C-alpha cells in the first residue's frame, strides 16, 4: 500500500507534524510512504495523509489523486481516529 504524504506549510503548527508522521511510520511499517510533489500529480495513491498544523488546513492537497480517501490531520488528539481510518483502508486493501 502506498500512502501519499502532504504537509501544510507549517507557519504556526499546534503540534509537531513531523513527530506525528514518525509515529505513524513506526506503527505501520508495511505502508510505503511518499511525500507528494508536483511530479506526482497523475499518480493515484492508495490513500493520502495530510498533516495540517492547525484547523485552517491550508495545504493544497486536492490536486493529488487517491484511490480511497484523504486522511486530514489537524491536531495531535486525532491520533486514534487516524489510526482507525488507516486500519480500515489497510484491511480493505489487504483483503482485496
Amino acid at each position, binding site marked *: 500500500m502506498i500512502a501519499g504524504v*502532504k*504537509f*501544510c*506549510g*507549517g*507557519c504556526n503548527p499546534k503540534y509537531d507534524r513531523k513527530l506525528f508522521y514518525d509515529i505513524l511510520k513506526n506503527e505501520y511499517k508495511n505502508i510505503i510512504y511518499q511525500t507528494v510533489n*508536483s511530479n506526482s500529480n497523475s499518480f493515484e495513491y492508495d490513500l493520502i495523509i495530510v498533516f495540517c498544523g492547525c484547523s485552517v488546513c*491550508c495545504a*493544497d492537497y486536492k490536486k493529488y489523486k487517491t484511490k480511497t480517501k484523504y486522511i486530514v490531520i489537524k491536531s495531535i488528539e486525532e491520533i486514534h481516529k487516524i489510526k482507525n481510518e488507516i486500519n480500515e483502508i489497510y484491511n480493505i486493501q489487504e483483503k482485496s
Partner: protein
Amino acid sequence: MALMTGNEYIESLRKLKTKVYIMGERVENFVDHPLVRPSINSVAMTYDLAHDPQYEDLITATSNLTGKKVNRFCHLHQSTEDLVKKVKMQRLLGQKTGSCFQRCVGMDAFNAIYSTTFETDKKYGTNYHENFKKYLIYVQENDLTIDGAMTDPKGDRALSPSEQKDPDMYVHIVEKREDGIVVRGAKAHQTGSINSHEHLIMPTIAMKEEDKAYAVAFAVPSDAEGVFMIYGRQSCDTRKLEKNADVDLGNKKFGGQEALVVFEDVFVPWDKVFLCEEYDFAGMMVERFAGYHRQSYGGCKVGVGDVLIGAAALAADYNGAAKASHIKDKLIEMTHLNETLFSCGIACSAEGSKTQAGNYYIDNLLANVCKQNVTRFPYEIVRLAEDIAGGLMVTMPSQADFDSPEIGGYCEKYFKGVDSVPTVDRMRILRLVENMALGAAAVGYRTESMHGAGSPQAQRIMIARQSNLEHKKALAKEIAGIK
C-alpha cells in the same frame, strides 16, 4: 534550472563580481565575510525550505507564466489564497531565522511592476509589460534573489527630485541611447542588496512632469559595470568578528543586511527598462510596492515576534519567575500584539483583488493599517521581553569571562537561575533577547518596523485617503435622524 538549494544559492553568489565595501575596505570574498555571512544564511533558508516537504506548500507555487514550480518569492500572486500563503511563508521564515530574510522586497517589486507596466503600456503603447514578463521568467527559471530597490537618499525632504541641489539624490536617467539608458544615483537602506543576484529599481515617490527624468524603473545584475555597495553597520556587529563569541552573538547563524547601492553611470538595455519618463505612473508603482510591502510585515515581523516571545518565556522559566501571574500576563499581551499583526496581514490578503494585469493586490487600506500597527507593536513586545528578561541581558559578562579558568566559576555561580538549567543556557537566551531588542536583529525587528515600507506618516496619509469618511458621516446622520 530547478529550484536551488541553500548551498547552491551561496555558490551562485560566488560567481558574481559584486563590488562591495565593508568598513572602508573593498571586500572580494563577501560570501565568507563574518559580518555578511549570517545574512546570507537567512536568504539560504528561503531556498532550503522549498525542498523540505514540511514547508514546501508555503515556499513554492506554480508559475502562471510557465506552469512550473517556482519559489514563492519569485511568484505573481494569482489569488487571495496566494496572498495569504505569502504572509504565512513570511511568518515561517521569521520563525526559522529570527531575523530579516531579505527576499520579500524582490517579490513585492515583481508584483507591483507587473501590474503597473500593464497599465502604463495601455496608456502609452510601450512594451514594458512583455519585457518584464520575460525578465520574470528568467528570474523564476534561475531561482534568483532580487533586491527590490525603491528608497533614494532624497537629500532635502522638502524639495522634489528635480529641485535638489545635487541631481543624484534620486536615481535618474542621464542619457537615452538607441540601445538603452544610462542611469545615475543611489538607493539607500537596501535590504539584502549584497546577497542579491540582481537589483530591480523603482522610483521612490509620485512625480510631476519636471521630475520625469527620475521616473525610471529597470533591472541590472548586482555586478553590472558602475554598480557598487557600501555595507551598513548594525548594532553590536563586530561581535561577529570576535573568536569564541557564539553565546555573545545571541543568534550566531542568522541575520539581516542593508547597504547603500551606488549607480555610477550604469547602462541598462531597453529590454530591462520598465518605466522611462512616464512620470504619471511613478506614483502607482510606489503605491503598489508599498502596499505589498506593508502586507509583508504582517508576516515576517510576526515570525520574529514568535521567536522573541519564546525567548522571553524561556528567560522566565530559567530564572524561576514563570509561574508569576504578571509574567504570564505579559506573555499573553505579547502574543495578543503579535497575533494582531498577523490578523492584519491575513485580513489585507483575504480582502485582496485582481489587478488589470491579472495578479492579485492586497486591500490597501488594511495593508496600511497593518504596517501602522507594525510601527508600534514590536516596540511594545520588545519592552515586555526586556521586562521579563531582567537587567542581565545588558550587563552580563562576555563568553570569554565564562570560559576563563580564573573567573569562569564566579560567572557560573552568580548568574545561575533555577538549578535544573545550566547557566550557559540562561546566558544564551538572554543574549538572544538582547540581539532582537537592541543588537543586530533589532535593525530588522525595531527600526525596520518603524521605517521599512515607509515611515508611519506615509501610512496615515494612505489611511486618510481611503477612510471613506463621507460614508461614515452618512451613517451617523441616518441614525441621528439628520436630514
